[in-house]
């Protein structure tokens, strides 16, 4: 047995312990994960793909224009309704039942919701809007409730009897700017989410992106991507307090295809389709158990296992990337030209939906966990790096601080922001888990893969069971993350500053 030097242990702090666990689990996941490159000659494809950027063009610009209008108006209508629903739900967030059902709807990715509504209402705008509204109103409800709770300087004892008047006078005014800025941030997210709904067949950007990709028209892929960056990056100029009402009304009129609503289908889906078929057909308990057992050992176990492996690997890689990148956007380390270039780079990385990154890497490297892990790392790493950069800009170091960059990084800056860094990481954890599950649709054997195949076989009862498991897994991760943040005492108010967090 090796003797442990006690004086060393004294330096083991809570955040080192937590980091060690993340590292260890991440490393084990790295060893387990299948990260092989299966495409035959990648270099040529990669070269072809990246060189196409100079040949930007699109076959039919009117289609492209329509795809953009479609994407933007779906996102706008969806966020408008979600904000209203979310606000009302936020008022009842103290209610346990509301809280639990919201954490459940939140835990299911919008792409999964789209797959569900496809079965009920078919391929149309209604499906797209509902797929965004349901998870988004749940997310907004949670964050709105937090914001309302946090920005409240009025003492409880002074609050009088007219509850609505007091609510409007003492809670809303201070919370309002934060509610608006968070909703705006969510609108950006809704743009990304709507774009990727195209991958399941709705005619938003993702639809044209994937079809151009499959035909090898890489110049079109770049065209769509670059225009999308411009749209996302310029949101604050065209979506503000003056334009949002006319734009939302215009979007309602633009999207006139709500014909898909079918009450019978909805009833059939809820009362029959998703009921396990041995129960539906009254085959008895043994058959039901066999049905469950079969799915459990062949799909749930490997699905959950792979989802966790991918999540932990991606989390670990995200952490590394963020730690490497954040000095590039920090005033404490670099001059303006470097920071500006890095900013643009990070903006591009984080405005590309993980799903699209993963899709691109999948075409380049073939199916394994590698594309998914890379995509999750780049997207989430750049978000955390950006937040950390902002965080370090707020630090005031003493004037005679060391000029050596590495020393400054390890002795002065990192120790000061490390707890914050871990908190950011834990906030992203749940999101990475959601994405890891969904990336299964691209052919990696996470839960999304099995859900997608269940839908393809039209076995909706199985799909529903797998979705429940996915949601459950997410809720567990959320709870662990909350516990970990409490353990680190890194839980102080994030909603006001880190809007790009959740």
């Amino acid at each position, binding site marked *: 047995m090796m003797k442990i030097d006690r004086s060393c242990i004294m330096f083991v702090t809570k955040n080192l312990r937590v980091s060690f666990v993340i590292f260890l689990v991440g490393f084990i996941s790295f060893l387990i994960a299948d990260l092989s490159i299966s495409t035959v000659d990648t270099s040529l494809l990669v070269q072809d793909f990246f060189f196409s950027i100079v040949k930007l063009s699109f076959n039919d610009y009117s289609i492209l224009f329509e795809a953009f209008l479609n994407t933007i108006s779906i996102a706008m209508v969806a966020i408008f309704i979600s904000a209203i629903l979310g606000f009302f739900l936020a008022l009842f967030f103290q209610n346990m039942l509301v809280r639990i059902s919201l954490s459940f709807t939140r835990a299911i990715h919008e792409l999964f919701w789209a797959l569900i509504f496809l079965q009920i209402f078919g391929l149309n705008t209604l499906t797209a809007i509902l797929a965004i509204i349901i998870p988004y109103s749940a997310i907004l409800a949670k964050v709105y409730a937090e914001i309302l709770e946090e920005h409240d*300087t*009025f003492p409880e004892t002074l609050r009088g*009897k007219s509850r609505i*008047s007091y609510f*409007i*006078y*003492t809670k809303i005014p*201070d919370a*309002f700017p934060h509610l608006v800025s968070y909703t705006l941030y969510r609108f950006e997210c809704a743009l990304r989410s709507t774009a990727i709904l195209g991958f399941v067949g709705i005619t938003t950007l993702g639809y044209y992106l994937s079809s151009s990709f499959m035909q090898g028209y890489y110049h079109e892929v770049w065209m769509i991507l670059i225009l999308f960056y411009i749209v996302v990056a310029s949101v604050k100029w065209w979506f503000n307090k003056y334009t949002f009402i006319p734009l939302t009304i215009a979007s309602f009129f633009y999207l006139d295809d709500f014909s898909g609503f079918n009450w019978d289908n909805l009833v059939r889906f809820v009362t029959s389709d998703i009921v396990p078929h041995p129960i539906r057909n009254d085959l008895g308990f043994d058959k039901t158990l066999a049905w469950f057992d079969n799915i459990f050992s062949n799909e749930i176990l490997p699905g959950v296992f792979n989802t966790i492996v991918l999540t932990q690997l991606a989390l670990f890689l995200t952490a590394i990337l963020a730690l490497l990148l954040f000095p590039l956007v920090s005033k404490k380390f670099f001059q303006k030209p470097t920071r500006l270039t890095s900013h643009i780079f990070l903006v591009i990385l984080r405005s590309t939906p993980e799903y699209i990154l993963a899709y691109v890497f999948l075409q380049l490297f073939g199916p394994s966990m590698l594309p998914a892990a890379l995509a999750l790392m780049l997207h989430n790493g750049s978000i955390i790096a950006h937040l950390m950069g902002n965080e370090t800009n707020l630090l005031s170091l003493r004037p005679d601080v060391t000029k050596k960059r590495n020393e400054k990084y390890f002795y002065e800056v990192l120790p000061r922001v490390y707890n914050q860094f871990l908190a950011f990481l834990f906030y992203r954890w749940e999101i990475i888990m959601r994405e890891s599950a969904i990336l299964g649709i691209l052919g990696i054997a996470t839960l999304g893969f099995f859900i997608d195949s269940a839908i393809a076989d039209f076995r909706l009862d199985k799909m529903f069971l797998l979705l429940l498991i996915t949601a459950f897994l997410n809720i567990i991760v959320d709870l662990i993350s909350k516990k970990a943040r409490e353990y680190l005492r890194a839980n102080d108010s994030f909603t006001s500053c880190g809007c790009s967090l959740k």
Partner: protein
Amino acid sequence: MAFYLQDQNISYGDFTVLSDFSLSIKKGEKVALLGKSGSGKSTLLKHLFDLQKQNCSYIPQELGLVNNLSVFHNVYISKLDENSLFTNLKNLVLPSTKYKNDISKILEEVELEDKLQSKILNLSGGQKQRCAIARAVFDEKAILLADEPISALDEYLSDKTLKILTSKFETSICALHNVDLAIKNFDRVIGLKNGSVLVDKACVDLNDEDRQKLYYVCD
């Protein structure tokens, strides 16, 4: 009698701050509570407020202003219960002239009339205190309970606002830590130290020893 406490234990959370505490305050009395932070002044005031919420205007130490609302609205808040939801909503968007005039008058007395439409977040600490005082005055209750309402004001304004706080309410109980201002503006002083009363006398009856004790509790 405005307040009558007999051998009570008064706690802050789980922690008993004042034990076996007795105090009686008659209607019409102007009382200054003196003592350092931690002596139990705030706990006592909060307790008194909980006893008679209906009759008291309370200015907590943290003031309880809504940062993103104007001074007008923060003062108006004390009338929320009196008015209908409709009136309240209307005044939020379009303040009525009547209320504007009434509130301006009070603001004039605390020398804040030019800030009627300023948001609280643009005010200094002293201006915020005066806004909270205006809110309490506008409340028009019989009893005032104020927790260090003048800590950020200069001598001139302290004097002026204390006069308002003692004259606009039938009964006033203020926590302070300036002995001279307390003796000058109030009828009765109570010196608290670690949860027990060291001095409790009418100002006219104070002798040198009492004054020494009062300076001691505030040190």
